């Protein structure tokens, strides 16, 4: 993992794919999450496509762990809420006046599975693609470099922001601020902690902007890249196929809804 990104360095076929091919795959995952009709289809997509891709990318453990960490709480909350409140005929159990139904459970699990598929696609993209390469691929296709820069730095600079917060915390403690006591006291002490962090960051913005200008950020020249992103005819064709499949799925879903 580098900076605040979740990229994991590996030597794999998935890592070597052009970032836009993986973006197209992610788009297909989002379209599938929105369009596929039921739990078996969604789980089949996860097990039949995303999991093999994670194995191919030598990311199985990290991929499954991240899926579990993010989707796990949703599975729990969604099944409880849907199970108790979305109604249904088949009662599984009662909790006082509240009835937990099989239909509700299925609805909750289906919703969680949709999240799992969409998140799985995004995770594979982010864990196997260095963010600078993703932004390079996008800017080469006309994505505004300024927006790409903002997105990238927000990801990369986050750990440094955490370091600064730690320095302020240490400095305030050195001046006698008691941070270890109860929750109420901690909430009261938030201002002396957050204040310097925000003010310091705002002051840094000006120097950061100057440093960017010194690095010719607003130069009228057409930007080039140190690294060439490997691409191929096959991948370009695959991207079109994935994009068409995503569009077809969404159209099919729309058509089904209108019927």
């Amino acid at each position, binding site marked *: 993992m580098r900076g605040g990104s979740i990229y994991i360095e590996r030597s794999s076929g998935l890592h070597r794919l052009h970032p836009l091919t993986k973006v197209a795959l992610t788009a297909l995952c989002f379209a599938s999450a929105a369009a596929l009709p039921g739990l078996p289809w969604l789980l089949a997509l996860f097990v039949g496509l995303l999991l093999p891709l994670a194995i191919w990318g030598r990311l199985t453990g990290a991929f499954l762990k991240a899926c579990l960490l993010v989707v796990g709480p949703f599975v729990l909350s969604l099944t409880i809420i849907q199970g108790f409140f979305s109604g249904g005929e088949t009662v599984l159990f009662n909790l006082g006046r509240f009835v937990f139904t099989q239909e509700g459970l299925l609805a909750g699990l289906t919703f969680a599975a949709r999240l799992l598929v969409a998140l799985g696609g995004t995770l594979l993209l982010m864990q196997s693609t260095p963010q600078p390469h993703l932004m390079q691929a996008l800017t080469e296709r006309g994505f505004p470099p300024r927006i790409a820069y903002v997105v990238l730095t927000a990801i990369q600079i986050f750990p440094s922001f955490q370091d600064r917060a730690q320095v302020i915390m240490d400095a305030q403690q050195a001046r006698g601020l008691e941070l270890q006591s109860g929750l109420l006291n901690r909430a009261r002490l938030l201002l002396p902690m957050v204040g310097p962090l925000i003010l310091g960051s705002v002051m840094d913005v000006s120097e950061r902007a100057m440093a960017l200008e010194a690095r010719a*950020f607003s*130069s009228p020249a057409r930007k080039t890249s140190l690294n060439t992103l490997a691409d191929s005819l096959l991948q370009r064709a695959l991207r079109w196929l994935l994009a068409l499949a995503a569009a077809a799925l969404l159209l099919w879903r729309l058509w089904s809804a209108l019927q």
Partner: protein
Amino acid sequence: MIELKKFSYWYPGTEQSALDRVSLSIAEGEFIGIVGANGAGKSTLCYALSGFVPHFYNGETEGQHTFNGQDMASLDLGQLAGQVGLVFQNPFNQISGARFTVREEIAFGLENLGLPQNEMRARIDEALELVNIQDLAERSPFSVSGGQQQRIAIASILAMQPRVLVLDEPTSQLDPDGTRDVFTALSKLVSTRKITVILAEHKLEWLATFCDRVVALGGGKLRAEGSPQAVLSSEQMLRLGVGRTQYSEAAARLLRTKQLPVTLEQARKALK
């Protein structure tokens, strides 16, 4: 190359001028040191010489301010960036945050200038070697020390090969070896490529050794200008809060001489 004539500058919303009728002419291939106590106007002068005043900071200006005969206000910062480089005191804020490795970080400015890959690679290798950080090339710029980050910031600007290099206290986070590396690299650039180097610095010994000319500021005014020997050995430096080199201090205590040495070499001769 860069010329200020009775140039004054006020930051937005201030009544007191940060630079007050400063006249300074800088020629190609000069190595100039700027000295002054804190708040003397060193950073503002650096910003003016690199075009950030008035382009980045709006404020009010008076007097003449030209780069290669053209009014600085009529030039664009994006175009100036390829000709004038600026290195700041705080290394952390100079890391773009948009690249994974030091090599890519140095490439950031070159990519913005639209250079081809081969030229970028050659310039990056040269810049890494100049500031002696070849071993950091594949590291993350966020995983190195403050001093190493400062060397990366300097290398990033050096790789852009500007005609003028302005550095605002660039060695404040460097150890003696790092400081020596930076001064040696800058001196080499001046002698081999005729690059103009303008350096605001408190480490007077280094300025005395490497600079052709020293400019002393106080309260936003230009108080003294001349050879390092003439400026740094004067009594005025004590009044301005600039201080003296350790060699001048030692000689002032040990010798009865009007002409204080400012470098180690001069001190050695004087003490013989």
